[in-house]
């Protein structure tokens, strides 16, 4: 057990006051983590001092989550050392991490739906007190006040918005006594306003001398809240810099390794007749409540209609209903004038509707089947891919070779199992399968979610090409930039309704944020 040396200043600038006295809260040295075929962390050094918000910036797949999962004991490193408050430690499990005062709010929450907030917080500490719930409630209120974390301890988790659930997760960590708090892409589920509130909470924690690690791939957030930034690229640390001494452009260069085009060229396209018409659509969600409440919209050929909104406001149910994967309660859906309400997914696909699904691994591919077999998932029972009951592997493989080349899918071979491809290539595979039949309507749900900048660019370009070809594209994305950049028209969805419709540029971001939070309705000169 060696004690951490006092030389942390070498890693980069320091934030102010609180930090300078003792050893750093966390010090990770030479962390290496390999996954089959990937070096997720390549000799990473990282340091967190008391009283700082330290941003961990990097593209998707850069290794941010992996590094923090190591600190939180979910993975063990292949090489490297970890010091907490100067002591070398072995963190074999989250339990060890919690004991060391480390708390983590994951990208996906781990709450129990059917329990109340207080129960969820108490669940983590079964061993604690005699009358735990009352005590838990009191302390939740205390944390609420101290940090500005608004939650009702008696609300059921399923009633909470994503932002509220996140606050519960933060309280859970504080409750366990964390003074090192890790937040993995916390803003991805928040509205702009909620994001600002979260930043305020983080600042208060910092001012109390806690250390906050804030994972993100969004540059403006780093500039808004971080004291220092560590940039990861392909598992390596590119550098650690004080936020006050850098700017978005140079951070982007560090993150991507080249100059980045922040905008894609979008040409003018002649808009054609309506391809997708949705009239007063009502759809029931998984909880038995109306998830889509009277949505009416029209998307024309050659047009991208973007749906902005925080996840969970009916976007998923809307897309699934159009694709035939979820029952419509009332209202109608027409494709090129033909009523397809409550038709099967097969019929709807046959009408020329392509679907790039939300969870690409769960809905989009068959992981152990080959790339070639995955490319005919929707057409395996048609000529030329089968004759009668027999598959025609020659045609299947010819098709795969053609599409792999045309859509630039990087794969060792067309016989490689699809699960071995990277996220971007899996998405290109899905696009290749869905777009190669020249669909009239494209339903694209979060098409670039979780992809790196290069893959994101290529998927966006594909969508724009489809638009030029004359497809009607319905784009759902939580990335507001993306929606505003790609769409010809935008509808904001909140509580299952389209609460505002506008053309990009007509309305400022602040206004859009308020619509996304359900505070305001507006802008509808753009109805098509």
């Amino acid at each position: 057990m060696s004690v951490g040396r006092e030389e942390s200043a070498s890693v980069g600038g320091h934030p102010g006051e609180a930090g300078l006295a003792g050893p750093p809260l966390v010090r990770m040295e030479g962390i290496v983590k390999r996954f089959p075929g990937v070096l997720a962390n390549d000799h990473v050094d990282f340091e967190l001092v008391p009283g700082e918000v330290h941003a961990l910036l990097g593209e998707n797949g850069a290794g941010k989550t992996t590094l923090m999962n190591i600190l939180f004991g979910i993975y063990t490193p292949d090489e490297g050392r970890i010091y907490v408050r100067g002591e070398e430690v072995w963190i074999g499990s989250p339990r060890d991490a919690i004991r060391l005062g480390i708390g983590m709010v994951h990208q996906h929450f781990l709450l129990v739906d059917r329990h109340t907030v207080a129960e969820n917080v108490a669940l983590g500490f079964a061993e604690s007190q005699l009358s735990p719930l009352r005590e838990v409630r009191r302390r939740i209120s205390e944390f609420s006040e101290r940090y500005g974390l608004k939650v009702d301890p008696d609300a059921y988790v399923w009633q909470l918005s994503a932002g509220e659930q996140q606050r519960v997760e933060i309280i859970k960590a504080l409750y366990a006594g964390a003074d090192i708090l890790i937040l993995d892409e916390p803003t991805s589920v928040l509205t702009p306003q909620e994001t600002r509130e979260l930043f305020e909470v983080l600042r208060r924690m910092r001012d109390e001398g806690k250390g906050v690690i804030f994972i993100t791939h969004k540059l403006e957030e780093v500039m808004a809240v971080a004291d220092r930034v560590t940039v990861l690229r392909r598992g390596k640390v590119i550098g650690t810099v004080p936020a006050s001494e850098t700017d978005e452009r140079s951070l982007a260069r560090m993150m991507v390794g080249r100059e980045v085009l922040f905008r894609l060229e979008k040409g003018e396209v002649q808009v054609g007749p309506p391809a997708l018409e949705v009239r007063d659509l009502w759809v029931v969600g998984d909880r038995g409540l109306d998830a889509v409440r009277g949505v009416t919209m029209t998307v024309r050929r050659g047009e991208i209609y973007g749906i902005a909104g925080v996840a969970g406001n009916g976007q998923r149910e809307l897309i699934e209903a159009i694709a035939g994967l979820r029952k419509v309660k009332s209202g109608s859906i027409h494709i090129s004038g033909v009523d397809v309400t409550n038709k099967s997914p097969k019929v709807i696909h046959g009408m020329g509707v392509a679907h790039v699904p939300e969870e690409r691994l769960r809905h989009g591919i068959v992981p152990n089947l080959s790339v070639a077999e995955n490319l005919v998932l929707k057409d395996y029972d048609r000529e030329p891919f089968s004759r009668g009951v027999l598959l025609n592997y020659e045609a299947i493989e010819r098709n795969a070779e053609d599409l792999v080349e045309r859509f630039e899918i990087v794969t060792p071979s067309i016989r490689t199992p699809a699960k071995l491809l990277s996220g971007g290539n899996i998405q290109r595979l899905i696009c290749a399968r869905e777009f190669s039949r020249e669909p009239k309507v494209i339903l694209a749900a979060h098409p670039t979610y979780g992809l790196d900048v290069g893959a994101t660019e290529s998927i966006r370009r594909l969508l724009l090409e489809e638009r030029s070809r004359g497809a009607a594209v319905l784009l759902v994305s939580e990335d507001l930039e993306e929606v505003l950049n790609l769409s010809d028209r935008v509808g904001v969805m909140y509580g299952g309704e389209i609460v505002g419709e506008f053309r990009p540029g007509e309305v400022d971001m602040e206004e859009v944020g308020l619509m996304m939070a359900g505070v305001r309705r507006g802008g509808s000169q753009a109805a098509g």
Partner: protein
Amino acid sequence: MRLVVEKRTVASRRFSVAVRVASVAAALLTMAAVFAGYGLDPVRVYGGIFSKAFGTPVGLAETVVRMIPLLLISSGLALVFKAQFWNIGAEGQFLAGAMAAFVVATSLPDLPPHLLIPLMFAVGFLAGAAWGVPTAFMRAKLNVNEVITTLMFTYILDWIFQWTLSGPWKARETVGQLTYSGFRHSVVITENAWLPLIEGTRVHWPTLALAVAAAIAAYLVVSRTTFGYELRVVGDNPEAARAAGISYSKVVSVGMIISGGLAGMAGVGELAGIQHRFTAEFLTGYGYDAIITAWLGGMNPVGLLVANFLLGGLVVGGDYLQIKFRLPGGMIDMFNGTILFFVLAFEFLLRYRIRIRR
């Protein structure tokens, strides 16, 4: 030092074969310890099993006799397992086929063999399928786990079977002036229904031919047809199957028709080729043993043939053990259980990588 367990993304073909072989070897070693604990020399025991099952023409023929139902059943199981549908009730479907064939043979005793025998196999197929298919519906429509239902269906039919043996199907025997019904067995079916044998053995070759054909056909169906594609998609990612418009209930139902049907035909072969009547000991666990071989052999006709041949030999050797070393019959069940246990435990190695770190 600690063990680190990680998901393995791909296992090479050679590695999977090696793991399977190692799993059987581990089972043999474990059982060797059990035999030693019993005061027997494991080398002599295994030597005995081996020479008995594979060393003489008579033994080899017996091994093939045991292989026939195993191969037929496991071909269907391997197919339906591809859809991740765990039919562990082949024993019941086997019995359903045999019982239906018995009804045919006793109702139409005068039908000539070239009509009667094919009819028995056809009816046996349908009966096995009929006994299996409800479990597919229950899974698809009501989301009832098939591991439970397929097993329960076996128990249900086994009780019905035991009842018929004490009642309606119990044979009356005449000795001199006396007619009595003592033992719990049925009448012997008409000789028109007896399957032809290979000279000097008990190998009923029509069923053997069916079994080999089934193993090859199952492989071709899975790898070359649209239905096989659907099976693989449903098994690997049911959600993607749904999104692609592949019906889960259709796929598992057809899978169970094939799997149950082949088990039913195996039951017909056992009745018409070997036993010729029902006794209380008609069931010897082929339906369960075939789960092991379906898993060991994978969806590959050669693999199935090898696995079933070896397990057939083990059954023969097991009988011999009981006689020669006076081992309890439960020892053979334990033997098979040990193999299945190690096969499944070693499956872990195909999915995860275990490493030792300081």
